[in-house]
């Protein structure tokens, strides 16, 4: 490790309603791989966006190569030598590898582009990195791993001095990861500063030199990777004081019947052999970090994505779920995390949304029976305490919490006994949150069974009777609420085998 190349000091950034960065400090040395860790929403990405000029900081200073800098956009940062290798790759599939690497700064001979020269240069870059990629290959034909290598090559061709990797291994195979690590070590040997954002605990020990942990937008601590333990990191990540009282013990009797049983469910990379049970009247929390495969599991159960294998039993009976219609028939309702996109027709009225999934019951011949529709809608408005002036109100005019209630009423109208809540309180203010919590508890008490996917640790601990933890498509833990703690959940959530 050499001298310090980048220092961020007292970086503060507020968005309306959120204090995203609270006087964060960060330091990077030449020839160092510096991990940046934290839960979802801890502020890692925001910090990097401030660094590369996508966001403007409110206060604080960035010292790069001894000078204070403030970049106006990623391009300025790039030409200064700070480059991000994005998690989502930005590639033009129809152009060749070399054309992608040199886009916007083509090597010209006269008015024409000198593709031969560009191919040669690209080859040189790849040789430097010890990667074997044909520069004349179309980008779209490469694997995700190879594409990422191209991004790295592109970064290096910008004469980068600082490279930020944003969850680089998320989409890679085992062998690709090894190759990536080899490259990262090479870059380190060439005295570059590398910022490495990842959720994978084992990678931290394997590849990084130091770890900076963030939590809730604030700097927590910086540890030396070699000497710290996994526990140290986990503790730093979750060591917050929880204000809301966690649930102390499960409300579900031990002998409650199993209403949903999932066995060896497989669907793509992010649902890999998942098995669990859901009991009557239970709230089953699904915890994990971003990309753990929880939403994918829910979608596979609901029939929104096709599953490759695995069995689903509802009330002890094997059911064949091939589409959401099948799931609804079996009494499973899914409340998407993105209500506006998947859950609601926001330009329609409360009544129309409430009966959408069960419209055939509210028909009079060819026409919709408005009176009956309003009746049932009103009934659920009352029981869920939805705040709406009338059943004719457009859903778009309701608050987030009340929109959520309309989605719930939609599935209740359909007589669904199993409800999957995907991030039920995302984008909902604190007051409405507790109302949703109350609603879920009421539903459970009435005998409905709930799967609650949540990335918020306090929410998991407050609501769940039992907790299933996933990591990268696999179930890595299951515990009763009595045994659960932030640390134990986070351990399981970062477990790779």
């Amino acid at each position, binding site marked *: 490790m050499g001298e310090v190349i980048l220092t961020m000091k007292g970086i503060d950034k507020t968005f309306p309603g959120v204090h995203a960065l609270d006087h964060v400090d960060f330091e990077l040395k030449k020839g160092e791989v510096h991990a940046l860790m934290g839960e979802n929403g801890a502020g890692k990405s925001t910090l990097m966006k401030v660094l590369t000029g996508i966001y403007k900081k409110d206060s604080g200073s960035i010292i790069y190569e001894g000078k204070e800098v403030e970049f106006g956009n*990623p*391009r300025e940062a*790039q030409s200064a030598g700070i480059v991000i290798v994005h998690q989502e790759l*930005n*590639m*033009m*599939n*129809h*152009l060749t590898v070399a*054309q992608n690497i040199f*886009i*916007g700064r*083509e090597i*010209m001979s006269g*008015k*024409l*582009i000198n*593709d031969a020269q560009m191919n040669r240069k690209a080859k040189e870059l790849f040789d430097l990195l010890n990667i*074997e*990629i*044909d520069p*004349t*290959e*179309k*980008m*779209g*034909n490469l*694997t*995700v*791993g190879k594409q990422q290598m191209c991004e790295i090559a592109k970064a290096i061709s910008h004469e980068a001095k600082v490279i930020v990797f944003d969850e680089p291994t998320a989409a890679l*195979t085992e062998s690709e990861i090894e190759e990536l690590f080899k490259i990262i070590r090479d870059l380190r040997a060439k005295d570059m500063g590398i910022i490495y954002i990842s959720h994978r605990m084992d990678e931290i020990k394997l590849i990084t030199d130091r770890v900076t942990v963030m939590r809730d937008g604030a700097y927590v601590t910086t540890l030396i990777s070699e000497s710290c333990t996994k526990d140290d990191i986990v503790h730093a990540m979750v060591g917050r004081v929880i204000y809301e009282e966690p649930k102390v013990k499960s409300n579900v009797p031990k002998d409650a019947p199993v209403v949903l049983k999932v066995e060896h469910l497989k669907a793509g990379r992010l649902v890999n052999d998942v098995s669990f049970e859901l009991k009557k009247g239970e709230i089953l929390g699904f915890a994990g970090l971003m990309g753990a495969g929880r939403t994918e599991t829910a979608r596979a159960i609901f029939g929104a994505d096709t599953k490759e294998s695995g069995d689903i039993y509802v009330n002890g009976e094997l059911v064949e779920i091939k589409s959401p219609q099948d799931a609804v028939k079996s009494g499973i309702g899914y409340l998407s995390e993105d209500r506006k996109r998947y859950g609601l027709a926001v330009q329609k009225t409360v009544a129309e949304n409430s009966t959408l999934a069960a419209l055939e019951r509210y028909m009079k011949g060819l026409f919709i029976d408005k009176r009956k529709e309003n009746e049932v809608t009103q009934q659920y408005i009352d029981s869920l305490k939805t705040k709406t002036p009338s059943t004719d109100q457009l859903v778009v005019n309701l608050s987030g919490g009340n929109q959520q209630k309309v989605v719930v009423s939609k599935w209740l109208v359909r007589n669904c006994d199993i409800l999957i809540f995907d991030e039920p309180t995302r984008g909902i203010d604190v007051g409405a949150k507790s109302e949703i919590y109350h609603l879920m508890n009421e539903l459970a008490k009435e005998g409905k069974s709930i799967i609650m996917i949540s990335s918020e640790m306090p929410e998991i601990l407050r609501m769940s009777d039992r907790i299933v933890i996933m990591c990268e498509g696999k179930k890595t833990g299951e515990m009763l609420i009595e045994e659960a703690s932030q640390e134990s959940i986070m351990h399981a959530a970062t477990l790779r085998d």
Partner: protein
Amino acid sequence: MGTNNNKTNAAKRGIFTSAGATQKIVVILVIVALAVFFSVMSKPFRQYATLVSIFDYSYYISFMAIGVTFALITGGVDLSIGTGMITCGLVGGYVIAHKAMPVGVGILVALVIGLLFGLINAMTVAVMELPPFIATLCSMMLARGIGSILTGALSVTWPPAGSEQGWVRSFFKYKTEGGLLIPVGFLLVIIAVIVMSLILNHTRPGRYIIAIGSNKEATRLSGIKVRKYQGLAYLICGLFTGIAGIAYSCTFQAVAPGSGAGLELDAIAGAIIGGTSMNGGYGTITGTLLGVYVMSLLKTGLPYIGLQSNWQQIVTGIILIIAVLVDVLKNTKGK
């Protein structure tokens, strides 16, 4: 993704290259097959005049198709080229026939009108970010109306071949002293194909136009002025609309206002048959030209075997469905 030890990447071409190249070969085979088929089936087809006719009717579609290929590659479309082309021919012919201007001025006017439509489309699509389908549908109507208004809804006759002002027609069909007709317009088309291929594949504007069609957001993030190059594609399209207008006028001599709607579909069909992707990001000018010849061959050839123009439209429709299907399959395989 499990095992990927593809050390010889160069040998293993994926869907992003091979489909385009194979399609071109298939199209060439189709052209050859059609030509052989018509020649065998019909004696009158096997004459020099038929070849000249095929070329005659291919010029204006070729130029339109070359232009619209650029719009298609950006992931857009330009529906205004049909009526736009007629308007160019009308107004150009109007200044020659009714304002006593030399033919050169008429040609210039046609080109300028074409560029103006290109500019309007560039503004609405690239700058104001209207969906290309809607924006160019509007300019298609604009073109039809403007053509009628500027010429007082009169049909216009371009100077006939052989007359003093008729020299422009020799650019497309040259009559030797011995009376032999030489379809020299083919050379113009070939020159346009070479120049535009060069621009598309070996200059920055061309490269960026492909990049926009492939991934607009990524192109923007690469620091490229997306609007400028998207707009440029429509300007090129407009310029070729003007050239097509001249080619049309020279072929048919009489241009009627209010016509032209539907001709753009022939050009778009040609481009699609030639392998240009409706989703943008891929297309070649040579492929487009080949596609146009499939269309022209069908148009000219089918009547020789006793099938009227109704049949030609049915056959073209079927071929187009196949071409689009290939495009769709290509893309689903890519995912």
